[in-house]
């Protein structure tokens, strides 16, 4: 096994592109090292991206935020500006693993691990976050929901690295929220989860809405119909009921060690309602 710590994204991309055997990218390592220790993967090349300039930084730009791929979730959680603008994304990132894990893990890693149960991903999808991909043929910016294609699989080509996640600047009346269901209080993986992102008009009615569900299908789901049903409403009871019904219906869950199909369907709707209520309140709705 070869471990390298390149100083530029070009070098990292180059090494990954010419790798012959299995290669892995190391940021926090909270997925990679566990999988290696468990004997599930034996990479021949490990590319540590933490020394690449800018990847450990959170930058506030004219358009919003740029969160480097090596920014640990705990650091993200301590960034006041991001926390204020995107509380749902930050709370999702700070649910991953444990306090210790949060000191290492990253939202980019969470996205690229491509687990349907990844905590930060439904919040990022609801937020309309974008991923900046660097690869052998240059850079491109894509919607985060287009990254995972199935459990453990991504749309990234050989040699490609996500170098940052972009979040938009927030208008005045905006709020997001993320909720997951776990049988315990922490140190667990979502049985099902929901992220909701709303903006309101001046009268407090919902202007735009995005709803995403986790652990409800092979990938995190963006439920566009659920967003549409919220638009124009002030989150009255009838709307919330329709929201739950749409979310439950959009699920394509499985029975497994973490939960049943029936449970995931039902609770997806409940969590979407509750997350919508929190996001609405955060946006200033009453």
């Amino acid at each position, binding site marked *: 096994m070869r471990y390298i710590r390149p100083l530029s994204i070009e070098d990292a991309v180059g090494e990954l592109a010419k790798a012959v055997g299995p290669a892995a990218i190391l940021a926090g390592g909270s997925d990679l090292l566990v999988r290696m220790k*468990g*004997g599930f993967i034996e990479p021949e090349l490990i590319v540590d991206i933490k020394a690449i300039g800018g990847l450990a930084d959170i930058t506030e730009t004219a358009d919003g935020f740029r969160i480097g791929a090596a920014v640990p979730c705990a650091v993200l959680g301590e960034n006041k500006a991001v926390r204020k603008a995107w509380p749902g994304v930050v709370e999702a990132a700070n649910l991953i693993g444990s306090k210790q894990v949060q000191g290492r893990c990253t939202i980019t890693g969470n996205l690229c691990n491509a687990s349907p149960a990844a905590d930060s991903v439904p919040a990022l999808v609801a937020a309309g976050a974008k991923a900046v991909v660097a690869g052998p043929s240059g850079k491109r910016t894509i919607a985060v929901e287009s990254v995972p294609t199935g459990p453990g699989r991504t749309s990234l080509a050989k040699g490609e690295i996500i170098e940052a996640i972009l979040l938009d600047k927030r208008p005045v009346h905006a709020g997001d929220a993320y909720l997951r*269901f776990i*049988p*315990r*209080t*922490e*140190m*667990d*993986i979502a*049985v099902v989860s929901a992220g909701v992102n709303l903006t309101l008009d001046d009268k407090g009615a919902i202007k735009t809405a995005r709803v995403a569900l986790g652990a409800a299908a092979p990938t995190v789901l963006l439920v566009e119909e659920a967003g549409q049903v919220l638009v124009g409403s002030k989150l009255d009871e009838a709307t919330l009921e329709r929201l739950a019904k749409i979310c439950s219906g959009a699920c394509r869950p499985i029975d*497994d*060690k*973490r*939960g*049943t199909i*029936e*449970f995931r369907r*039902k*609770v997806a709707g*409940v969590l979407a309602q509750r997350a919508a209520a929190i996001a609405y309140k955060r946006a200033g709705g009453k």
Partner: protein
Amino acid sequence: MNFDPRFTGRKFSSVGTRPLRPDGIDKVTGRARYGADFNMAGQLVGRILRSPHAHAVIKSIDTSKAEKLAGVKAVITAKDLPDLTDGDAAMYDILDNSMARKKALYDGHAVAAVAAIDARIARQALKLIEVDYEVLPHVTDVDEAAHHHAPLINDQVFTEGLEEKPAKPSNITKRTQFGHGDVHKGFAEADFVIERSFKTEQTHQGYIEPHACVASVNPDGTADLWVCTQGHFVYRQHCAQLLGLEASKLRVTSSEIGGGFGGKTHVWAEPVALALSRKAGRPVKLVMTRDEVFRASGPTSATSIDVRIGAKKDGTITAAEATLRYSCGPYAGSWAEIGAMTAFACYKLENVKTVGFEVLVNRPKTAAYRAPSAPMAAFAVESSIDELAREIGMDAVDFRIKNAAQEGTRASYGPVYGPIGIGPTLEAVKKHPHMKAPLKANQGRGMACGFWFNFGGQTCVDLNIGMDGSVSLAVGTVDVGGSRASLSLVAAEELGIDYSQLKAIVADTSSLGYNDMTDGSRGTFSSSMATISAARNAILILRDRAAQMWDIPVEDVVWEKGHAIAKGEKYGNLSPLSLKDIAAKSGTTGGPIAGHSELVADGAGVSFATHICDIEVDPETGATRVIRYTVVQDAGKAVHPTYVEGQYQGGAAQGIGWALNEEYIYGKDGRLQNAGFLDYRIPVCSDLPMIDTQILEIPNPNHPYGVRGVGETSIVPPLAAIANAVSNAVGVRMTHIPMSPPRILAALDAEREG
């Protein structure tokens, strides 16, 4: 050995205080040596190859490629552990469980092992071992396995305990029955009868420290084993028998233990490590991974239990009956039998009958887990008792008080009780402020009782007094919960010296006589009895030495408050001699001063507990949260109250995990789906409230201080207490443990749909 174990009421100066434990500093600074912390020069890394199949004939094993890999020093299969068990069926099962001989009987069953110079090579070597399996149909569910169409796990099993030997083999190894009176007559007299069926899933003890050992076998037939165990003397016996060693030539040293809860009372990997070392000619270290711990060690039984209880309008129980089916893994056990004995032990019953069936399944060999078999039986019985109280219209506590067993009651499992604590724990619960605390919406309160036998057994202690007057205490029961502190208090009490003057250790098997293992809540009960005896023997010598120093008859010397005192006015001018004074002169008065004790600690007092639990249920998701929990339990005498409370809290915490989320989940392929702490969900700290405790002290008449075992009983009531709380919170009676959110939500939905 003239030792009178009877209880004598006395005042204590050391016993009942709460000093720091002697092993505390090492544990909080990371200096304590656990199983995997032992190392030897030249040691190899041992790894075990495990069956991926739940049930398969091992047609052949080809180890040649693995043996040729550079760095591999030994590869073994069952051939390297020949059968020396000489007709001892229980030992044969342990041997076969350590290394499958003809069939792999569960996912995770060991089939071969390697010793190599490092872990990477050992892992590679495992991949080079070729096992040719013929996969057989399997069965993992206890009810399916008991069915006559189920795949047979062992075609030589014909159910024992039936009036006639059955014509066909089955997966039911044994039927047992307990009780007295006439239940038909009793049910005929009942105004109300409750009949329910319950299931509990399999759980693991969940100790944080995986099984670990270092084995070193010498060519001269001697061997050493350093191991994390609850009973190094028992491990020595088992390993010596399985390896063909002489017991006294195998020295076993127990490490500190990161939890056992019954799961470290059996050998699994140790015979394999010894066989690897014997073949390689070098020490071998073998540490199980967490995945191996789940797949191949522990767990407790999965159960299926039917209960029927009848009572009169006035609340008198007229009859009680239960049929209990417990999974044993693929080897015979007595787990249902213990469940059948404990099920109704809390109650005074005229007519009672319990029947247990031991059921073989393609799962790991069932091991003891803290009051083994009792929590499941208590779950079924105490849930039914609550329902019956409701039918009658009686308060759940009053109904239990009315029917509680007392001194003189004939227990449902046979014996007649002496002074016991079930009534007092119920009365204490009735008065406890917890019972009157207000509840909010979706919150409910439940309570339940539990019983455990406790055990005494063979015990040996050495107490040595140094020339400086300090005292070392060598015990042979592994310290799983603070017993070194408790036993030091007991020795300090007897000798009349300060706790700080003592240091207790757990001696290895070559330094002390045989001790049964730390199980059955016997550690402090039995070793304190032996410590008292050893201290009294030492005092005999101390008095004799004082008499020599004073040149007076020993009969005139008494021992009080750590001093020899010359009794009688004629000795008025002799000042008392302290233990230190006498020890300082020991070299010239007859040599070292020591007290020894070897005894069988009979008369372990039975133990009872009553728990109260408040729970909140989210009716939309089925999520639960334990918001308040109180344990009331009889300790006989709490030697070190902090560690007694720790046992109460630990048992309750494990019971809460078992009740709510812990379970072995098998796929249709017979493979364990959740062999890790991520998906085998034991509670984390933030899942639990502070668990309140109340210690009752109803002296055990068979111990000088009145001590009873305390370690196990506290895991017995939680399953039922929580089920009763859920029922009171949201009106659904959960009959399947764990009461995980999907199960609770499904029950709520079924209730809402009517």
